[in-house]
């Protein structure tokens, strides 16, 4: 099962004035659902377009099952793409759109009819053969685009923000469908998105990209729980960031001081000294009664704002250290007991606090990149 393995090596793309992709290395084993996640302009789409063959790399290698295809024209690569705007041919009906690739491959008529039918069944659009793409809803066009790409049995399917144009509810439904479809066909999916939730829910692994570089590679849980850079911490979900001074750092535990309070945090492999940032997720902050006994990692604060968001309550607390911190309290049906001006005690659990070197998010240092390489290799089976 070595079909669909992608390896990018020192891949780089310079446009006239900007470097879109700045020498990235990635390994995606066959059959994985892998996402490239990042803000617009981070180089994720350019990376995908280079793998598809629409852009020619400035330098570097694209290994598809071990062969370098960086300079193979797109029509000779065994990858297929689902485009952001679907790019269904408007002059052809659904059947002819899906059959387009098979006809280019000169398959016999009977086989084309059978495979198109099967592909339509796969995306649950049986009976839509004669429709024009303009007569389909956004979600249906999306499925036709999927069928058109999958019917050719590619070893890798590239998806460029395929759900971007759909409304939230449909997007959720299709996320689940796409994931199960991927498991059904068992080929590699390389999925580009700027939607962190989409990337987290669907991917086996993901790479967070920024400024043409890969910031971190890992499983959704690793990347979310264990961000290695400020950028990743900030981009994925909501993070409370605080300035702190490192007192002691080590692989098992660190101590940081901020404004008269000393906190213990998780250990780090990274080299942190002096000024650093500490990060905690809103859902990990515990709110306690202000009269509860003070103790380790506890900071007094005052409720500044309470926002009801439905499934949870967002409580913005001004900590005694000066920073406003956001805490997320699950809505369990009991009455909201927090109100503006109420004193509380914040508990920042040791295992939820992380120290990150300042500034790494803006200009990723070589160190951060080196740190992720072995991780990607070790997660790759085989």
């Amino acid at each position: 099962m070595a079909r669909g393995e992608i390896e990018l090596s020192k891949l780089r793309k310079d446009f006239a004035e900007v470097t879109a992709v700045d020498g990235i290395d990635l390994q995606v084993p066959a059959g994985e659902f892998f996402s490239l996640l990042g803000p617009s302009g981070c180089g994720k789409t350019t990376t995908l377009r280079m793998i598809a063959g629409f852009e020619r790399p400035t330098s570097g290698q694209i290994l598809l099952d071990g062969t370098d295809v960086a300079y193979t024209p797109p029509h000779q690569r065994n990858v297929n793409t689902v485009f952001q705007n679907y790019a269904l041919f408007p002059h052809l009906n659904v059947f002819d759109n899906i059959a387009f690739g098979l006809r280019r491959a000169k398959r016999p008529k009977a086989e084309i009819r059978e495979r198109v039918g099967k592909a339509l069944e796969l995306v649950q659009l049986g009976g839509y053969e004669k429709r024009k793409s303009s007569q389909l809803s956004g979600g249906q066009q999306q499925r036709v685009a999927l069928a058109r790409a999958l019917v050719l049995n590619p070893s890798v399917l590239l998806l460029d923000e395929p759900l971007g144009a759909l409304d939230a509810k449909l997007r959720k439904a299709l996320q689940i469908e796409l994931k199960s479809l991927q498991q059904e066909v068992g080929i590699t999916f390389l999925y580009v998105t700027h939607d962190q939730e989409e990337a987290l829910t669907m991917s086996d692994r993901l790479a967070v990209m920024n400024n043409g570089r890969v910031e971190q590679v890992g499983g959704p849980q690793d990347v979310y729980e264990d961000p290695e850079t400020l950028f990743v911490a900030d981009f994925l979900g909501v993070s409370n960031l605080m300035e702190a001074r490192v007192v002691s750092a080590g692989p098992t535990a660190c101590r940081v001081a901020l404004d008269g309070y000393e906190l213990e945090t998780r250990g780090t492999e990274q080299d942190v000294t002096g000024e650093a940032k500490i990060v905690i997720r809103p859902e990990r902050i515990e709110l306690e009664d202000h009269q509860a006994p003070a103790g380790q990692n506890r900071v007094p604060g005052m409720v500044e704002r309470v926002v009801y968001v439905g499934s949870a309550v967002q409580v913005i607390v001004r900590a005694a250290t000066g920073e406003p911190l956001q805490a997320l309290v699950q809505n369990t049906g009991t009455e909201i007991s927090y109100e503006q001006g109420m004193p509380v005690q914040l508990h920042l659990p040791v295992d939820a606090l992380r120290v990150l070197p300042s500034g790494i998010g803006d200009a990723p240092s070589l160190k951060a990149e080196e740190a992720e390489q072995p991780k990607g290799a070790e997660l790759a089976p085989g």
Partner: protein
Amino acid sequence: MTAVAEERSRTQFSTGTRLRGWLRNPWGKPRFLVVITWAYILWSIVPVLIAVQFSFNATRSRTVWDSFSFRWYWGDPVDSVWHDPTLRHALLQSFKLAGADVLIAVPIGLLLALGLARWHGRGSGASNFIMLFPLVTPEIVMGVSLLLVFTEVFTFIHTGTLAQILGHVTFSISFVVVIVRGRLFSIGRQYEEAAADLGASPFVALTRVLLPLLTPAIVAAAAVVFAISADDFVISAWLSSGGPTDTVPIRIYSATRAAPLPSVNAIATIMMVATLIIVAFGFLTWRFFTRGERRTGGAAEDFGGAFNLS
């Protein structure tokens, strides 16, 4: 001040306000613009309608209406369009030039547009700019230059039909390029990329995907080229060798300098109707082929604007 005078001034005031309100009601139609538009349409169409009306006059007058007849189309045994050989030849020559122009300029313009739209490098900007030259060069300058070229440089081409066709093609190509390139930009590269992604070589992508998508632009360009060629006077006149190579506009021009008959109106009406039919056909084809496309970024509207070029 009497109560009556007060009452009157208030009424006048409110009438003025109402008129202003009718013209610029921010929630209603832009009536002010509607009024101006209709005024312009009437202004521009009235002379045409008058010319058409007198082509059906039963007497030799082009100013005094008598009664309706087809005398100047075919009724008159000597001076009608059908029976006067100079008029008949002019009509034929005009259609011949327009037809040849379409057949030559459209394919060349199409290839040029494809090349220019896909060529991003040194000189592409300049080429795109030079493409617009024939659109802004005064026609009279172009006519004189072409005549010089054919009499001094390419002397094997004599004035007459061939020179006229070459002249028409020279300035028509720009129109084709502008229209086709507009469509190319509005459809973007995504369909070509999708075709390549599905295994189509660049040539197959061109014939199976790009050309079908360009069909509306090609038809529109053909209609526009036909219209401007049939309409052309300056270049046709400079490159004409007289007699049978005079086109309808030349014939009308020389006729009106002598003693014009309503047959001039008749031949003008025939040209106008023929051109209208062809442009309408082009427009309907364009509408038919683009009917299913989603309107993104007003591409359709931009493209419809191409028809205003004629």
